[in-house]
């Protein structure tokens, strides 16, 4: 009897392979067990499969022609459409972009793993002379390789697991939901991102929250204070659960002492300012916390700065806590 497992094919194009490497950080269970437990057969992955050379060519051609089936197609890396696809050629001289499109149009569902595959990402940064695009977006605009109105055989648009890199949990949980038929269009945000992580903001659960509340700001990376006012942090605008879902055991950009650069957002690589500076107008950041009216932000910031405890203000520019929180005053006997 044929396996009821879902057949997963993973392709790579204009990217760094970092989303795959991040997947290897999955713990308990590790990657291959997690896929197996989710009922997924990894038919092909460029980093992990035994088959090589002609065997791969035959498999991918079979998928493109429909002789082989694929339930879940994952693409990692942008699609290189410039110069008739010559920025990424297959060994036979044909463009990789064409092969990706042919397989995607036959796949049960299509998943863009990482910001590059979703929107073009870092590969589309600057003048984008390679014509790097995402599967169904070019930057934040619908379009890309497959067109903004693309729907896969299962009726879903491209599932954009954006992030640079992606958290292994985002990928494995999305794949498990897809394999179980438990991900619907309602579960994706307007940019196609799974809402289970994209409806949170990086700000949620940030260990610098007390500094944020009192606008006790760091002036450089590596200081304890909030990095939003001066050091370019976009955690209050970035859609991801990085501070409520730990990376590599116990990390996040903020716990590491450096700003969030909003890497789940389509155009994060070209912010229009230095990554380590916050552009300001009249002393207030241009990028305000999500859904916050400017007048209230200005009013609350001014108020909270005037109320900042000495301890918090002092620690903000230190590289470690030098003034601990005080204990409750002793009650009189």
């Amino acid at each position, binding site marked *: 009897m044929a396996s009821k497992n879902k057949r997963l094919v993973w392709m*790579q*194009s204009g*990217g*760094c*392979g*970092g989303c795959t*490497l*991040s997947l*290897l950080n*999955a*713990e*308990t269970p*590790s*990657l*291959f*067990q997690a896929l197996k437990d989710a009922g997924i057969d*990894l038919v092909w992955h*460029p*980093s*992990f*499969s*035994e088959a*090589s*050379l*002609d065997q*791969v060519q035959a498999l991918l051609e079979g998928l493109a022609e429909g002789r082989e089936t694929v339930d879940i197609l994952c693409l990692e890396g942008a699609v*290189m459409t410039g*110069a008739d696809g*010559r*920025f*990424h050629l*297959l*060994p036979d001289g044909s463009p990789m972009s064409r092969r990706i499109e042919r397989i995607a149009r036959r796949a049960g569902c299509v998943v863009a793993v990482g910001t590059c595959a979703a929107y073009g990402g*870092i590969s589309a*940064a*600057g*003048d984008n*002379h*390679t014509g790097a695009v995402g599967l169904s977006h070019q930057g934040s605009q619908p379009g890309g390789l497959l067109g903004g109105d693309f729907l896969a055989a299962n009726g879903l648009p491209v599932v954009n697991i954006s992030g*640079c*890199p992606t958290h292994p949990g985002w990928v494995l949980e999305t794949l498990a939901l897809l394999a179980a038929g438990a991900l619907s269009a309602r579960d994706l945000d307007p940019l196609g991102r799974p809402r289970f992580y994209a409806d949170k903001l990086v700000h949620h659960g940030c260990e610098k929250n007390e500094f944020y509340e009192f606008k006790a700001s760091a002036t450089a*990376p*590596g200081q304890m204070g909030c990095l939003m006012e001066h050091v370019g942090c976009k955690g209050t605008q970035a859609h991801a659960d990085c501070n409520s879902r*730990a*990376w*590599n*055991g116990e*990390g996040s*950009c903020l*716990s*590491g*002492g*450096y*700003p969030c*650069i909003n*890497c789940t957002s389509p155009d994060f690589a070209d912010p229009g300012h230095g*990554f*380590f500076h916050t552009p300001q107008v009249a002393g207030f950041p241009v990028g305000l916390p999500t859904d916050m009216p400017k007048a209230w932000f200005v009013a609350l910031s001014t108020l909270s700065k005037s109320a900042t405890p000495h301890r918090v203000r002092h620690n903000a520019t230190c*590289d*470690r806590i030098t003034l601990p929180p005080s204990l409750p005053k002793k009650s009189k006997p």
Partner: protein
Amino acid sequence: MTRRLLGPFNRVEGDLAVTLDFTDGKVSRAAVSAPLFRGFERMLVGREPLDALAIVPRICGICSVSQSVAAARALAGLYGIRPPADGQRVINLIHAVENVADHLSHFYLFFLPDFARADYADRPWFAEAERRFKAQQGAATAPMLEARAVLMRFMGTLAGHWPHTLALQPGGVTRVIQAAERVRLQQWLRAFRRFLETHTFGDSLEAVAAIDSERALQDYRSRRPGADLALFLDIADDLALSALGRAQDRFIAAEAYPDEQGCWSPAGLWRNGATEALDIAAITEDNHSSWLAGSGAHGPGHADTVPLPDKAEAYSWSKAPRIGGQCAETGALARALMRGEPLLQEMTARQGGTVLTRVLARVTEIARLVPLMESWLTALDLEAVLLAPTPGTIVAQEAVGLTEAARGMLGHWVLVENERISRYQIIAPTTWNFSPRDSAGQAGPLELALEGVKADDPQALQVQHIVRSFDPCQVCTTH
């Protein structure tokens, strides 16, 4: 003459195709192609210098920290600063974690599964190789991935996450370590050591690092038959991997893991059995066979990257790096030779750089690095400042940042005009190893290593072993 086009190669980082010409049944000419180009050198132009820290790690998901280290070092040159001693120790720890994890991933996930192919079903070691090393399913895979993930927790604690951290700055690192955190890091490193000593080596790391001759290596192999390294040595013996994949036998390395006293592994150029100082000014690139404008040798500080996808004589997006006009091989074996490791010196003197010596250098480096990491953790002054502030202005208009990635020498050449990057050139390890021909027609290391190989089997397995013995990273190669 017949021609065979091989590709796409998998279990290499990025994309690779190889064209082989055969004469009398053996490869008479190989042309190595990197078929993907993104153009990071162009993306960096016009940005603020520090922005390189956010852009360059994304060149590569497997050598991400190495890219950060090279950029941070180049920027430190621009700003005229250097990390404090303990900041450098933490940089070294973060960098060593990536390099060790890469070595392990290469050995277990990319390289060994080829020996579990049915093509080898008649070999005496096959049943055991298939049981342990079969792609994705081998018994060695799950414990390795669990051990690797525990090691990678270092990245969560010290660097926020991996890959693509911003924790590495020109003046050090953005995160101090508390005493309790060091306890956790030491627990994780001990767990990782236990995995290595149980599975990979079947012996203490110190005993493996002490193997100083081929005779001692044979002793180890006979004493520890259950170890994964010993099984690989059996396979290597049977398949004569010591005679496979010899290139120019000219090796290049940068300094690795600097400290107050100097560094753990020195820079140098090794040729004709002797080590010379590394002359950075003698490094050039040649775009003759690249789909890029320009031909003839030019220093990396004096060239821009202009794609020409229609260039007739080209066959790769990779440039051809040379030192003093010659190509050179880089990687763990080069580092071992610069350090004067007796085992690898003896083997290289006898057999040259081969599939066996490249892989052995990589795996035994793990046994050396983990104790080193333990000593850095112990020596770390928890009260010390780990980050020198980056000044507001640069003091130099150009700088070079060199380091050793897992797979060899990585260099960043940066020029600044009007406080913006005006040129940024990168030479990655696999740019050296998988270089195409230069304008003098000189073949790159892999191209030479494939000459003379018999590759008439359907899967050209010897070619695959040679290719993977370099631990190629093609996304870095063309960047």
